[in-house]
């Protein structure tokens, strides 16, 4: 009986997410007036899916705590939507929805994998929501934050260097610092500073000297991360910088040259470092080293393949067989139990976020914020690419978390910050439009 319900539920969830995603893509383009109905529908689908998923989890585990946990989530989501409505009535609802959707899927999967971790993730999410709540207001009001770019650059770089020297090692990479029992991954936050730094450097002038200085600083960031063996982080910084440079300078040559340099550097790294070779081997022929380097990726492929298009159903698979499944490999667990179709739709949700952020960037007039929006969007979507591409063996795995879904406090908090900054810029765009209209009105009045 439980099997049947699990079986049906997974179709319900796939269907909900499909319609949700479709509406999401429509909402990216549509103007304010036509949005209401679609937004309500998204709200509805979001909560139906959330309810279905948690219901199944309860049925398959029989754990009453699941129900309680579900209640807390719903409460928090509703409060969040309410607060947004009160304090930021003009914020972008689509981005809010996508945030909640990704969070709810992440919490659901985590609760299935490790209830303790799910609860901790939830606490962090609430904290992150509160901490970042003020960010949109700051962005909207702040005047000269952009002039402090050298602080962002130097501060970020020094933080990364500190991690390299005194950080904790996990899985062969130096990623985290422990301060008063709290372990954080500074690079998650330095990413954001880095975007502000690059935007500050490049938004006004893009002469050769500026570009050279900025490139050196960016290269320093990347180099420190490579030395910390944080290959995923290094790639994210690198690509984000390339895209920002290309758009700021409007020079495709920069992009191509950078890409070439990146390829050459990757090749050299592959030649020189055993840990890079191990990752490439695990990607190119994991089955030949199935007990060693290839273990994680093959388990991930087993999970995805056995799950199939529609998944085995929540609680019916064996995602725990994949090492680090709650963090870097959570996408495989989702694909295994909720289905490849669901997982693909989730990818579309991320793309939808990216389109929305790019849309905001294009509509903004302020060159600085345009670049910031672009940079943040790029780092988010590229992180998604590295994470998912790695676990499905599309590219070598670089050990990157999936935004809003993977377990991990720093990752979650930094993504909340990204999202809040983007919301702030959306509000800014609204202000610009309003100003524009005022000016027009005044002009017309003058004419009269």
């Amino acid at each position, binding site marked *: *009986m439980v*099997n*049947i319900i699990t*079986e049906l539920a997974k179709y319900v969830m796939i269907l909900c997410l499909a319609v949700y995603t479709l509406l999401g893509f429509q909402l990216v383009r549509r103007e304010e007036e036509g949005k209401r109905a679609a937004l309500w529908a998204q709200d509805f689908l979001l909560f139906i899916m959330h309810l279905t998923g948690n219901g199944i989890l309860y049925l398959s585990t029989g754990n009453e705590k699941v129900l309680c946990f579900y209640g807390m989530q719903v409460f928090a989501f509703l409060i969040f939507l309410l607060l947004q409505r009160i304090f930021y009535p003009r914020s972008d609802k689509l981005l809010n929805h996508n945030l909640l959707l990704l969070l709810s899927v992440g919490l659901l999967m985590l609760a299935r994998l490790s209830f303790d971790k799910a609860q901790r993730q939830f606490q962090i999410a609430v904290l992150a929501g509160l901490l970042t709540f003020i960010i949109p207001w700051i962005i909207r009001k702040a005047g000269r934050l952009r002039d402090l770019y050298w602080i962002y650059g130097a501060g970020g770089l020094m933080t990364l260097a500190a991690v390299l020297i005194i950080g904790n090692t996990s899985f062969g990479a130096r990623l985290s610092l422990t301060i008063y029992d709290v372990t954080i991954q500074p690079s998650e936050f330095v990413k954001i500073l880095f975007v502000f730094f690059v935007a500050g450097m490049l938004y006004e002038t893009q002469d050769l000297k500026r570009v050279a200085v900025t490139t050196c600083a960016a290269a320093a960031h990347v180099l420190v991360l490579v030395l910390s063996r944080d290959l995923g982080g290094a790639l994210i910084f690198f690509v984000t910088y390339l*895209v920002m440079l*290309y*758009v700021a300078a*409007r020079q495709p040559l920069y992009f191509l040259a950078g890409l070439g340099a990146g390829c050459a550097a990757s090749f050299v790294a592959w030649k020189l470092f055993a840990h890079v070779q191990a990752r490439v081997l695990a990607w190119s022929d994991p*089955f030949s080293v*199935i007990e060693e380097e290839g273990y994680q990726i*093959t*388990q991930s*492929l*087993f*999970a*995805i*393949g*056995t799950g*199939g*298009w529609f998944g*085995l159903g929540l609680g*019916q*698979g*064996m995602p725990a*067989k994949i090492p680090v499944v709650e963090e870097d490999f959570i996408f495989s667990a989702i694909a295994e139990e909720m289905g*490849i179709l669901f*997982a*693909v739709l989730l*990818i579309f949700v991320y*793309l939808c976020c*990216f*389109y929305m952020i*790019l849309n905001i*960037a*294009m509509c903004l007039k302020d060159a600085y914020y345009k670049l910031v929006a*672009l940079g943040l969007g*790029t780092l988010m*979507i590229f992180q998604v*690419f590295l994470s*998912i*591409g790695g676990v*499905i*063996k*599309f590219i070598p795995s670089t050990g990157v978390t999936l935004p809003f879904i993977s377990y991990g406090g720093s990752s979650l908090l930094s993504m909340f910050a990204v999202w809040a900054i983007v919301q702030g810029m959306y509000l800014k765009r609204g202000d610009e439009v309003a100003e524009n209209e005022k000016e027009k009105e005044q002009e017309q009045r003058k004419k009269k």
Partner: protein
Amino acid sequence: MKKKKSRNREKRNSREYTNVLWIITGVFALMVGYLVWFQATESRSVINNPYNARLNTFEERVVRGSILASDGQILAYTKVAEDGTESRIYPFDCTFSHVLGYADYGKTGLEDMGNFQLLTSNAYFVERFLNELRGDKNIGDSLVTTLDVDLQTAAHDALGTRKGAVVVMEPATGNIRALVSKPDYDPGKVEENWSELSSSRDSILLNRAMQGLYPPGSTFKTVTLLSYLREHQMDGSGYAFHCTGSVSVGNSSISCYHGTAHGDLDLTEAFARSCNSAFADMGRNLDVESLQTLSDQLLFDSDLPLSFPYSKSSFSLDEDDGEALRMMTAIGQGDTLVTPMHMAMLVSAVANDGVLMVPRFMDRTENYTGQLVERYSTETYGELMTAEEAGILQEYMRAAVENGTASALDSDAYMAAGKTGTAEYSSDKSKSHAWFIGYAAGDKPDLAVCVLVEEAGSGSEYAVPIAKRIFDAYYAD
């Protein structure tokens, strides 16, 4: 004017953003495409892996499906007792042991290859739904193999109590019609007999057809012959040799079987009568490099397109290897080692005008009521030799039946061709493995066979009669 300018600028400005958008969209399209491709084509072979613990959980919800012969006869099925205990039954006992494998104590053979299909139920969905509702197990899909009960039985019986292997394959499709390895075991009783089976000196559990490595003996003369013909523009008419029963190599000698002096021979006679002296002499003058190239083309030392566990055949000969080794290699007594499966594939390619078909064990899966679920297509592996070369080899192999070591296969019902082999495997020259590789054509699709009888004697005496029983059984009706 000013306004227009600024709008232009805006447009230009947004061009880069649009480009970024398209690049990211493209990269993601590739990634999603890859994921979909993986699931649609790769996933099945990937997940059917002993390291994938998930398949075991399938057994809790599905009764393992049946394995059928190509005509629908049941080769393996699961019987569910009233109290729900399941037992795997093999109606033909030992006959299909190695090719079916076993499922109770780990999994091998087809039980392993088709594990995923056997544990997946594509029964009518209402029925599946009701079973789920009642908490009953569904019945897994049936695997329809390419195996033929008559041919398998003929091969199994003909090999008798001897150790060895037989592979029967359709050259045009790659269909494996029979695969025997002896000694064999009862696949239904592997668990209870495990200690005996696994500790036996005869390696009962070893699938000799796939994993046994043997010196090829005179069957290798087919390779030597092709190499010689290639050096002579595929024209063997200039060849002549006078056989005195042996040739000397340094201070030892290579002699013909039983020391027979074959007298004056042309190339066809030398091959058909399997003259060791002639081929050893040929080996003396053969270009080592082109023989090496040929052995690569014929899949020595390389991966074979097989989903069963198998051993790679090995061939090695260098320019600096002595004359003796070159001569021994030419008659299949050097360091060369082959599996019966590989030899079956080679002779299939000869029979199929040079083209090797991927050996095919599984024809289709059906749900337990017989409705088709999936059909597995035949696959061409590629050309091992040109059609012209294959045609010429066919003539030489035909001569061995018409007027040579395989003359017992001369029949009205079919036209057989092949090559025998008698492979010494130790310093004791009286002990040898008997080989036959060949094929037959008649009013049915061609059939290729490879027979290996361990520690028996000459190929014509011990291997050819087994091939004959298989061809007779096949063309009888």
